[in-house]
């Protein structure tokens, strides 16, 4: 079936079977491999994308659910020449190790700061608790989100 939606600011139309998982659609059909898959069962958050600004697990979504929606993947977060402040902070604060969780973490954090521009460390921990990271111990991710929040206010 034909599905049209806005992907990273551009309107697209794509043919996909109705049971196509969104994570496969993005990675395989659209070559947007920044969206990762770590479990396929909604447990790890690696496949997080933003749908109308809300973080969603693309491994649990089917292609038709995108119809008419505004979708942002990690590839579409930064503008051409400038990183998003959260991405910038992840780089500076050492929040990236193997990096496999990073796209999902960054998008979940984006959603968090949109809802709560001034979160405490505990609120940040709460906000990213659906995203699993096996490498960092989370501290530097919390540091990065905290710093990004400060920066985004100025």
């Amino acid at each position: 079936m034909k599905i049209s939606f806005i992907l990273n600011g551009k309107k697209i139309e794509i043919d996909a079977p109705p049971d196509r998982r969104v994570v496969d659609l993005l990675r395989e059909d659209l070559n947007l491999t920044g969206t990762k898959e770590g479990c396929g069962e909604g447990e790890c958050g690696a496949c997080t994308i933003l749908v109308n600004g809300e973080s969603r697990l693309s491994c649990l979504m089917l292609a038709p659910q995108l119809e008419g929606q505004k979708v942002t993947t990690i590839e579409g977060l930064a503008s051409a020449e400038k990183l998003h402040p959260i991405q910038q902070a992840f780089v500076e604060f050492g929040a990236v190790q193997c990096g496999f969780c990073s796209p999902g973490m960054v998008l979940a954090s984006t959603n968090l700061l949109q809802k709560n521009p001034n979160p405490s460390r505990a609120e940040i921990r709460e906000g990213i608790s659906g995203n699993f990271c096996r490498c960092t111990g989370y501290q530097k991710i919390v540091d990065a989100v905290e710093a990004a929040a400060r920066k985004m206010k100025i």
Partner: protein
Amino acid sequence: MTGREIPKIGKTVPRQDALSKVTGQEKYAVDYYARDFLWAGVKRAGVPHGLVKKIETEKAQALPGVIKVLTYKDVPGTNRQGVVRKDQPVLVKEKVRHCGDPIALVLAQDIETLRRALDLVTLCYEPLPAVLDPEEALKESAPIVQEENPQGNILLKGNLETGNVDLAFKECDAIVEASFKFPHQEHAYLETEGGYAILKEDGILEMTVSTQTPFRDRSEVAEALGWDQEKIRIIVPYCGGAFGGKDGVSVQTLLGLAAIQCPNRPVKMWWDREESFLASSKRHPCRLHYRLGAKFDGTFHALAASIYYDTGPYDHLGGVVMALGLEHAGGPYQIPNVRLQAWSVYTNNPIGGAFRGFGVPQVTAAMEQMVDMVAEKINLSPLEIRLRNRVKKGGKNSLGMNLTGSVGLEECLIKVREHPFWTEKEKWKSLAGPFRKRGVGVASVMQGMGYGPIVPDYGNAKIELTEEGRFRIYSGVVDMGQGNATTCLQIAGHILNQDSSHLELVLPDTARTLPSGSASASRTTYTFGNALIEASQKLKHRLLERAAGLFMAEEMEEIELRPGRIKHVPTGKEIFLPDLAKILDESETVATHTFQAPVAKEFPTEDQALKLHGIPHTIFSYGAHLACVEVDELTGEVEVKRYLAVSDCGKVINPQILEQQIQGGIAQGLGYALYEDFIVQGGKAQTRNLSTYIVPTSLDVPDLESIPVEIGEPSGPFGLKGAGEIAMDGPLPAIANAIADACGIRIFRSPMTPQRVFKALKEKEEGNS
């Protein structure tokens, strides 16, 4: 590494891989979807032990969209793989030895067809009684897992002894005894095993995979598949986590087999989480029986330990893991009378393998609790008893070996003793709310570095001045997230006085980079870094000499290497590096260097097998950990409120990367202590996914304080020692000791779940009343 600054040693430079990872641009092995690719997948046994009667593939083969169904009959080589002993089949022939054993390999046009076809393959087998308990496995009557092994179910056993243990126990004023039991721990790297392969027209079998060991894999694939090693190319992008779990072959031989059956077609394999849990290696479950004796003054006098590692059905790295555990079983203490015995035992449980710490977390978890138990008995503070018995440089360790490398354990323990978490602990503890108890626990840790005395432990660095005038570093060791690639650039940039815009990196690729061993054993930066320092210096020297000739300089001091150019200081003349590169011969633009790690000169044993498996090491990192916990007496729940790790990993090259390693190691150790339980019943995994296997989330890990004590190791690159594993060793014992401090209970196993803690609290209460 970004920006225009010249990287300094000892200063944080942001990781060069962070930008591409955080924008989703970095391609991992699982991110390739070549045009026209095929999916390959594995049918797994699902039973722990049985004789193969028949493998039925016809139905699967007949399914439209299925390209091939392969069994052992289709494997052209030895069909054997393994790191030390080749005792693991690529595809099972006669006998199934664990549930995850591969029976058939299916190639299909799309993933749905693949899944359906895998369901249609059936294994007809005759069940055999399974070997499920490592101590039972040693009995005469136990069924045999590996028929060819002359020692029955013993893969390797080891014995280390000093002094006169039996007599020494009689001389002790206090003796404590305990048994411990720790389960499998699953790596749960976020990127499961995967990659793609293609057999090219020129006969080269090329694969891009997530592995820690490309060069070793290449020879394993060659042997198992009967393919010329020179015609195999393994390319390793950044891995999405590994932690030891990608040390050795996972998809490589299977992908290779699939590819050679379908020339010119790219083949992709990507294990889902359940398959990864089922088939991948795990931290060895371990049983330990310890006895420790001390004198009234707190000096350790005698230690005896028997340790059983359940290695599953294949050697993999089970012998080496056991040997490292055995070597560390006495902890970083001087003990005059010691008897340590360890077994690595074949069973039909999941495969035991390398996992951060490599056998050491298990023994540390036991020994460090024993230390607290004996300290309590003679009424000495846990820190004082550790300080009293600690190893020192030039002194002996518990195996009677003289320590020749740097030893910073005393400094670590003193830092803990001076820290407010320790000095103000009584006050902190008194602030626990109602029905809550607080406690503070410590643990000493140590971790040997490298391969030990026999297996050559070398790094081969290569660096090149490119036509564009940049320095290209050929990294031989995989970066699975530790950040060693960045450290390489930092080292080369520092020596060559270049900013990141003049540096580039080639990730491990058997066709381009030089073999430098595995990304494991806390050796990566130590070994490769040492090689890279020399290679960079060689190249620098050569370039300066050539430039001096061009400038007709009188002294070498007149010539300086600057970012992108070389300057003759007295005249101000400059030559740009691209121009210099043009006039140099190829042999002059490349420098290589081999560094071989030092090995111990004395041995605690004459047992050749133990030496071969890595005993002893000569350089160790050390540390002291402190955990502050709060126990909910109504639920048994344990919360880690604060955590401090003081580490002696030598001089620090990049403080941020060291912190990453320490914090990440603590988080995995905290999971090991409190949550992670890979449950295996009757040889079958009961924890099949991330909803039942509980890894720490951002809510479970507190802020972690990491303090390095920077005592340089003279043999290390800029004084560095390994830091990748050591932080994993501390959390379990530190948390256990903190729980004991809070409530006066010990669980003697892990994870210390609310149920277990609650039960122990109840038993204590009943015992008191």
